[in-house]
């Protein structure tokens, strides 16, 4: 059942992937620099190395398609189109954030851009994604749901239950495993008995695609094939997108457990310069790429300023949004 979609990706699409990649890359970098300077304080899960994977996947979606992601999800949220200001405000706990500061970085929701749920419990997003897809199937609204998770998460029960149910019901859902080789400090083979994640699709009789997630073209083609299939009633796909978590599990954590060669290899294969090179090879000018980068840098400055200047929520918010009616003081 493992398929390898082929085809070509046009320049406009690749430029759009580049734009989203740059947005992710610059945002991630800014979070880290503000953390280092002490201007903001939060537990931050870097996405350095996984930008192109996510940008390519989300470019294959429609704006109103659904996304479910995890604590390590800022790349997915940005690629899906979440407003930058609201995202920054939420990460910093401000009243102007997507979720009024109540959710915070691990629990980003923005239904307008299809960012439906961000979870902190490993594997928990997969069953919820089925529910979104089931809703689309019942309402025939043509939406596709993508749920992102890591390699380590494929060892938890919810993964299994969700894939089986999705296949039984032929749900329009894409299970996107971002295989970055580690779950916290545990290497793939130490925790996962499968030789590769796509092997697990056999047990669900599910369509599966293994792809180099750091190759924008291959990743986009894989994503597009899965999206088309889901949208046309063909049911779910498990995508195993190979990538690398370049900066460890949590920002600031020691990464000495990662073999040096692996790190060097990842640097050599860094997807961001690689995508840039692909575009330059296609005769897109360096100026055009630099202009995109600069536009994003400017948006980012605005967003950071907006977040830092925004007020915190009122204490009374603790009684609101708990139930559908306000809780008595």
């Amino acid at each position, binding site marked *: 059942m493992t398929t390898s979609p082929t085809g070509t990706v046009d320049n406009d699409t690749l430029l759009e992937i580049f734009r989203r990649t740059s947005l992710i890359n610059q945002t991630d970098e800014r979070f880290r620099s503000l953390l280092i300077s002490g201007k903001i304080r939060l537990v931050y899960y870097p996405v350095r190395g996984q930008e192109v994977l996510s940008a390519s996947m989300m470019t294959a979606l429609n704006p109103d398609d659904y996304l*479910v992601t995890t604590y390590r999800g800022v790349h997915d949220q940005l690629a899906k189109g979440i407003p930058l200001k609201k995202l920054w405000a939420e990460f910093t706990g401000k009243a102007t*954030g*997507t*979720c*009024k*500061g*109540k*959710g915070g970085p691990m*629990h980003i*929701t*923005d*239904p307008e851009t299809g960012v*439906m*749920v961000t*979870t902190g*419990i490993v594997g*928990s997003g*997969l*069953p*919820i*994604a*089925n*529910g*979104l*897809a*089931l*809703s*689309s199937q*019942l*309402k025939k609204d043509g939406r596709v*749901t993508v749920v992102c998770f890591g390699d380590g998460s494929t060892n938890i*029960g*919810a993964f299994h*239950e*969700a894939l*089986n*149910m999705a296949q*039984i*019901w032929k749900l329009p859902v894409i299970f996107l495993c971002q295989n970055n080789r580690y779950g916290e400090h545990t290497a793939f083979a130490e925790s996962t008995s499968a030789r590769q994640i796509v092997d697990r699709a056999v047990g669900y009789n599910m369509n599966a695609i293994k792809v180099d997630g750091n190759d924008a073209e291959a990743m986009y083609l894989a994503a597009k094939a899965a999206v088309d299939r889901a949208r046309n009633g063909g049911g779910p796909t498990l995508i195993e997108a190979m990538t690398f978590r370049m900066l460890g599990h949590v920002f600031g954590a020691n990464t000495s457990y990662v073999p040096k060669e692996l790190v060097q290899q990842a640097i050599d294969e860094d997807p961001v310069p690689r995508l840039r090179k692909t575009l330059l090879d296609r005769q897109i000018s360096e100026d055009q790429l630099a202009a995109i980068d600069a536009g994003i840098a400017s948006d980012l400055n605005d967003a950071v300023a907006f977040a830092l200047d925004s007020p915190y929520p009122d204490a009374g918010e603790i009684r*609101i*949004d*708990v*139930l*559908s009616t306000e809780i008595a003081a």
Partner: protein
Amino acid sequence: MNAPTKISFSQGINMALDEALAADPNVFLLGEDIADAQGGGVFKATLGLSAKHGTDRVRSTPISEQAIVGAAVGAAITGMRPVAEIMFMNFLTVCMDQLVNHAAKLRFMSGGLTSVPLTIRCGTGAGVGFGGQHSDMLEAWFAHVPGMKVVTASNPADAKGLLLSAIEDDDPTLFIENVAMYAAQGAPPEPGYKVPLGKAAIRRAGGDVTIITYGRPVGEVEAVAETLAAEGISAEVIDLRTIAPFDEAAVLNSVAKTGRAVIVHEAVKAFGVGAEISSRIHEELFGQLKSPVKRVGSKYSPVPFSPPLEQAFLYSRAEIAAAVKATMG
């Protein structure tokens, strides 16, 4: 066709589900074996509903409780109103994450952007020989979880009316059914009959002591109250119906009048729902109480299989009567 003169508890459930499915296209049911091809549910509560409303809306599922509740959560945040059957309450232990970390929290964590109008029905209860893993009363756990409601019924009409309200309610609701009561008969409700959430019912008026209870023990308590009346003790019997948030006004008004209270539930007494109610009464009415509030619940033990032990585990009429008499001094 004449209206029936009596209906069973499961018929009450069935009527609520049928009306909800008919009234709102966003309502759908899912659970193990609930469609007619699979027998209409092991407790027959969904019998005939898939024939009438289709298997898209009355869906049998794999044995995958996390996937069931997860699918319900995902569909609910798109505005649907899923009703999931988790056959036995003890099985909630395999899907607590979806209920507690997601269903109950998503409204708050999203700052009100999404809500989770789902209902989970589950059966449970001791006294029918199901043993240690199928009989627990765990309502106290869910009452302790901010963001969700807990409901149970003591008769078929209330089952119908409360379940309909739960489905229409915008918050996640756990609806507990006592398996010993599925066959219990009662007066049939009018079509459209609803019981508001959060409102207790006074089952018997009395002036000496207030007995607060819910679910199956309501009948036992009424019987005890009858006996006590013959002995000159006038007991007021309150059926909470909604366990969380419970109708504090009804409880406090009654106890303010009687000056004495006993709380009765089937759950294990230690750290049960009765502790919260007792504490609230003492906190609010300390000066007006003639004696300390008493609690009657089941013993501190897993539910035993052997019939005499199972009876020894359960609260008894004798214990209820003794508790009432103790409050009379």
